């Protein structure tokens, strides 16, 4: 499970998701380390990434200057902890390192959006670039899991993502079946 932020909002969503997973299912959560460390459940492992790059001009430079840190943490999980089955990113920012992991280790990659840069009315070169990365992440994802149907319609129309690749589950109901379906594909 990769996230950029790990604030109350994202944490409550991920806690809820984990509660829907069967016992024995291991989850490793990676995010940028500026929040408190909390073990969600005994069999869930949690790690914040520390990045040495301090001067981040905007969110895009932050993402790419921490790409090596994400790669280091992902490879430590793969080579030293357990060989995971699925990568689930919780925004486009963690979507970029997830794409790296997907392509490097040939693993399925699932992406969840809670909000979209494309829906931002304030258009400038940064937001257009963010839109580009959102579209790129959507294209690379094996499945998109969203919480509301409106967002599904928007991603379908704005980013041209196939309808059948986008799943909508408001409370992560059926998440295990979605994971299984993605793994089978």
């Amino acid at each position, binding site marked *: 499970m990769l996230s950029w932020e790990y604030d109350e909002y994202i944490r409550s969503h991920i806690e809820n998701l984990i509660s829907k997973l069967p016992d024995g299912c291991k989850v490793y959560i990676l995010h940028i380390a500026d929040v408190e460390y909390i073990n969600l459940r005994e069999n869930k492992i949690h790690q914040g990434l520390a990045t*040495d*790059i*301090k*001067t*981040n*001009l*905007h969110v*895009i*430079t932050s*993402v*790419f*200057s921490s*790409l*090596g840190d*994400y*790669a*280091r943490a*992902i*490879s430590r999980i793969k*080579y030293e902890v357990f060989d995971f089955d699925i990568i689930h990113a919780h925004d486009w920012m963690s979507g*970029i390192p997830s*794409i*790296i*992991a997907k*392509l*490097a280790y040939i693993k399925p990659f699932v992406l969840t959006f809670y909000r979209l840069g494309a829906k931002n009315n304030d258009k*400038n*070169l*940064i937001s*257009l*670039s963010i*839109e*580009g*990365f959102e*579209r*790129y992440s959507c294209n690379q994802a094996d499945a998109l899991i969203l919480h509301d149907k409106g967002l599904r319609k928007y991603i379908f129309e704005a980013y041209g993502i196939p309808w059948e690749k986008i799943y909508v589950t408001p409370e992560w109901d059926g998440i295990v079946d979605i994971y299984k379906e993605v793994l089978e594909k």
Partner: protein
Amino acid sequence: MISWEYPPRIVGGLARHVFWLSKELGNIGVEITIVSLDHPLAPMFEKQGKNTIVRCLSYRFPSPDFITWVYQFNCWMLEKILTELRNDYDIIHVHDWLTAPIGLTLKHIFRKPLVVTIHSTEYGRRTGIHNDFQKHIHEIEWKEVFEAWKTIVCSEYMKKEVIAAFNVPLNKLSVIPNGVNPVSLDQKADIIEARSRYAEPWENIVLYVGRMVFEKGVHILVESARQLLSRRWDVKFILVGEGPLRANLTNSIEKIGLGNKFYFPGFLTDEEVKVLYNICDIAVFPSLYEPFGIVALEAMSAGKTVIASDTGGLSDIIVHGFNGLKVSPSSSIDLEKAIDYLLNHPKERSRMGHNGLNTVYEKFSWKSIARHTKKIYQRVLEEYNKGSWKPN
């Protein structure tokens, strides 16, 4: 080997460096795959001798600034490497900060050793770190050097600069100079004909090649020339290159009525510059900051005497009075005296030019540079193979 420029995509000196280094490494049995950016005149996949060139799209969507564009193409290059090359290589070699995120990511994701070449630093290029953009680049450079198994720099001067800027342990750094290809013309007749296009038979040609920017000290050369031309009239100054200072310099020269003693041809092709190296009498490089100074070597390879600032890589290359003259950086008076001295002493000029040519052949051939680089690769692989940091 990962580089954002590779011929025919030439932005600065990096493209030529990567081209010749990889070519000569290929000739001594090191198989190189170069990953670079697209160019309208080049295929996306190409075999050049034993080497493979893979090119990626450089543009997919808008970016607000240069750094963001750099990160965008890092993303496309990574995608290409991961899908087409996977982990089918032993060492990752990146040049400068522009492809650092790729190097760092591949290093960790496949646990392969990373070698970095630092051609110049943001700190040195701008004589300090003055804004957030620079600070970001500086920190990326630091991280790249920190994570590298070995860092290669092109001169003793750059070694000191990298140690000072990034606090790198000495044993992580190796000095391998840049290489140069001889630029001497085969036919003497070509030289006489070409010379007549640029200067009168009684005029001596003083040549400058480089970007028209402050750090190259071209404004100091113009000041020296102005002083010299007040005493002697038998000199023509040819200043090759583009940059923000060019318009100001040409305007100021026109104003004082010396327009016919200067020629600013702008950017020239390699072939045209080669001709100028061969027809000039003296080549001058008055840089204030110069990590290496490949242009000085090119002039020396044409057998020409070089006058250069006693700074950076130029200090390593020039032995004062043997293969050229060194002058204090930013001293137009010193530079004027040195030009005047060489114009008055043609035998000395010839002796130093001859010694310069020998220096290039002995120390700065691409074959020798490739051999040094191969040794570093071998040492890195030996250390890597002994260690436990590997994928399993």
